[in-house]
């Protein structure tokens, strides 16, 4: 009920307004030609001045600003790209230097090793020679000793046996007969003692 009254009142007020307008207005002011010339004149004047100022002074400036910003950004990007390339090249150089020095170190190491090995082998050879010499010397000495040893032993054996015989028998024995026996024995057992 309240709603109905509400909408009815709106409707009636609209009707009332329409009558009021119809009574008051003499049509659209837009169609009254009284100020047409004035409007045309002021439109051309204001719009023309605005157009001239905008096109001659303001718009070129804005376009300039936009262009310069664009070019600046592009320049910055270019510079950054150049820097990046530079740093990449530097990095490559650095890598190369490291590789080179590594190789150098390797060759130096190899060279030193070879040298050391050569030295070692040379020294070894010398030492070997020395050792061989010593061995030969010792062998010669041994040979000399080996040759002289039976004689000495025989001598000792003759002396000992003559002394023993003296003690046992009490009188001196002919040393030449004893030496003959010892020689004979030693000749017989020579192979046994020396193995040759």
């Amino acid at each position, binding site marked *: 009920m309240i709603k109905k009254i*509400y909408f009815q*009142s*709106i409707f009636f*007020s*609209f009707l*009332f*307004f329409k009558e*009021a*307008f119809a009574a*008051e*207005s003499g*049509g*659209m*002011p*837009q*169609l*009254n030609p*009284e*100020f*047409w*010339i*004035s*409007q*045309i*004149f*002021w*439109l*051309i004047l*204001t*719009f023309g*001045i*605005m*157009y001239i*100022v*905008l*096109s001659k*002074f*303001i*718009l070129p*400036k*804005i*376009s*300039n*600003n*936009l262009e*310069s*910003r664009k070019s*600046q*950004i592009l320049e910055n990007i270019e510079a950054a790209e150049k820097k990046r390339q530079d740093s990449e090249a530097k990095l490559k150089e650095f890598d190369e230097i490291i590789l080179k020095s590594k190789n150098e170190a390797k060759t130096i190491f190899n060279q030193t090793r070879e040298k050391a090995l050569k030295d070692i082998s040379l020294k070894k050879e010398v030492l070997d020679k020395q050792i061989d010499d010593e061995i030969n010397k010792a062998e010669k000495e041994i040979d000399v000793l080996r040759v002289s040893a039976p004689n000495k032993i025989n001598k000792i054996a003759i002396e000992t046996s003559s002394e023993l015989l003296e003690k046992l028998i009490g009188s001196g024995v002919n040393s030449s007969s004893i030496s003959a026996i010892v020689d004979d024995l030693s000749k017989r057992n020579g192979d046994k003692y020396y193995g040759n």
Partner: protein
Amino acid sequence: MAANPMSQFDVYRIGPEIKVGAFDISFTNASLFMIISSVSILLIFSMGSKRNSVLPNKLQLLAELSYTFVAKMISDTAGSKAKPYFAFIFSLFMFVLFCNMFGMIPYTFTVTSHIIVTFILAAFIFIGVTIIGFIKHGFGYLKLFVPSGVPAVLLPLIVVIEIISYLSRPISLSVRLFANMMAGHTMMKVFGGFVISLGLVGGWLPLSFSVALTGLEILVAFLQAYVFAILTCIYLNDALNLHH
């Protein structure tokens, strides 16, 4: 008087009557708002282009966004050949937009709600576009009225229709803007009148309508300026790039 929704469109003299010969070019409220719109456009864009920093401030951003917006609109609809007419279309768009927007402030006058103003703009565009078309293509511009791929029987009819549609361009362009502005402002005034007449009891409903209409009208104010500018671009495109 104030209750009449059409009284907001009244033009009245401000200051003395100025006559040049038989013509009355007195300064009126319409002239005042034309000047206000132009001066605000010039102020905003001159301040927006004064300093050139890589990181723009608000006004500079506004100016540059408007510039790129209009530039993109023109290049999208009329191609790169329309570049010399950029300044004109930019001024046109801004002028119509500012006049529409200033009209949205209560107790102001809407310049574009007058048929004579929109018609002069549209007629200027029409004549200019036609001249450009004839300069660019000579009498070949008349091929605009003869679409290709139409059967010979229909051709006389089509040509007549094309000519009528071409000649009605300034009328449709001007009436579209004028009617939109006038209708919107009249409607707002009517609903505002309802708020007063229905008082505290019934005034809330038209008030809410009024609020919604204000938003709608601001949208329409922008949209009509955009439509006006983009139609100009399309007409220019017809003159610059003859497709038929």
